[in-house]
């Protein structure tokens, strides 16, 4: 009987699974994505390829020479200098030192300047500090330097913000009021993103990453898409990355639309259509991880969704591959065996243009 194969659960627990069980999980994961998204399952050949990636005996795996993709980030330098909230190492480096370390010592394809809070709302009040540091760093970096933050509409609700909180209104049956609160918050958030962009654009911004779009639901995504439209109107050459918060747009409002399409319920292969329409240059889908299922199940599911999005997309597709998305275990200390397998599978089978 063949030796069981070393893999993990979605929460990172190390498990030894028989090959047949892994094959069954891969098949089930792909079926789950296909049913939810109404997209094709992986072919027999692709399922076999994914099994072989998972079953590779090496501790870490990689793509073959010539298959490399562009790897960008949404705040990797925080992993060097920040604290536990970002799985950070807490190194006593400045943000600019961390960016240059990531560019020159790590060989990243692009770099990104993040605000520690990583949301546009708190950036607005310290924008002069951000523009000064961005300008200084942009004189030193050679790789593309993005500025990135989350739209994060939740910050506009009470008690953190001025708008009524839909999570309090909805249980009271105040549907109309909850929807209005979301529209109010969306308008404020859209203006904040554009205001921050304008200031950075004036100091030579090379690209902007709207990360974790839709985290507060469909109105959050709508505001980010509208902000992207406005950014492109101000500077048509400005590269915009739009990364998603999850595989499915939550219908917290339920009725908001973009380009005549209802946003609630969209999966990645539909999300990319509205992201393209907004003028974004790179789309970053995020596929949820189920911590109770195995990584073969989760990764197969992620690859199925990403392949479907990549096939219909006219712009580069860069799946999010941080903790707890796209087949990466929900584990504070990343498990490199799974990280590298996800990397390889998303490129080789998911046809990702980057990560």
């Amino acid at each position: 009987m063949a030796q069981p194969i070393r893999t993990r659960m979605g929460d990172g627990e190390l498990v030894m699974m028989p090959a047949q069980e892994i094959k069954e999980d891969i098949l089930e994961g792909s079926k789950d994505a296909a049913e939810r998204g109404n997209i094709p399952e992986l072919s027999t050949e692709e399922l076999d390829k994914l099994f072989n990636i998972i079953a590779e005996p090496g501790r870490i795996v990689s793509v073959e020479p010539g298959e490399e993709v562009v790897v960008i980030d949404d705040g990797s330098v925080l992993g060097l200098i920040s604290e536990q909230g970002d799985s950070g190492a807490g190194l006593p480096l400045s943000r600019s030192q961390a960016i240059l370390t990531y560019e020159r010592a790590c060989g990243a394809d692009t770099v990104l300047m993040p605000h520690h809070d990583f949301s546009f709302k708190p950036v607005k009040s310290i924008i002069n500090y951000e523009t000064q540091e961005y300008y200084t760093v942009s004189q030193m970096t050679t790789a593309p330097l993005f500025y990135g933050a989350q739209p994060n509409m939740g910050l506009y609700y009470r008690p953190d913000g001025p708008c009524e909180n839909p999570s309090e209104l909805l249980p009271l049956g105040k549907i109309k009021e909850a929807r209005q609160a979301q529209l109010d918050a969306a308008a404020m958030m859209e203006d904040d993103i554009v205001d921050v962009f304008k200031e950075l654009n004036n100091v030579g911004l090379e690209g902007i990453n709207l990360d974790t779009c839709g985290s507060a639901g469909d109105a959050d995504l709508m505001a980010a898409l509208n902000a992207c439209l406005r950014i492109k109107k101000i500077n048509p050459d400005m590269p915009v990355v739009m990364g998603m918060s999850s595989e499915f747009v939550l219908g917290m409002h339920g009725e908001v639309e973009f380009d005549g399409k209802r946003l609630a319920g969209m999966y990645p292969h539909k999300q990319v259509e509205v992201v393209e329409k907004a003028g974004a240059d790179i789309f970053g889908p995020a596929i949820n991880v189920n911590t109770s299922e195995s990584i073969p199940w989760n990764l197969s599911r992620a690859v199925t969704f990403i392949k479907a999005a990549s096939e219909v997309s006219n712009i580069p597709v860069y799946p999010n591959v941080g903790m707890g998305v796209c087949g990466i275990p929900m584990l504070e200390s990343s498990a490199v065996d799974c990280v590298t397998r996800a990397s390889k599978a998303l490129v080789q089978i998911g046809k990702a243009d980057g990560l």
Partner: protein
Amino acid sequence: MPIAHILASCMGGIRTAGDLVAWMQMTKKMRLNEAKLYVADKLGIAVMDLINEDVMRPLREELGIGTSIAIPGAVKGIIAKHNIAKLLDIEINSVNLFHSKLK
């Protein structure tokens, strides 16, 4: 986490030609293969050499497009990006700002 992805599937940034391919994807919306072909053509090398350190290390120094190695006096930063914008025929906002400040 990002280091693991860099080792598994990344083009290599300024060690090779990863930043150049990234510029084409983000400024021209090019899909991966199109961007690689475009950059290889501009550099006058084979696509497979885009990730070949042995080719890219001296070529980057020769073209003045920045290297990961600290070479005293060699081009880096905004001057490298000026050369990259020219080489790839793209607009880079920081470079345009730099040009606008020159007397």
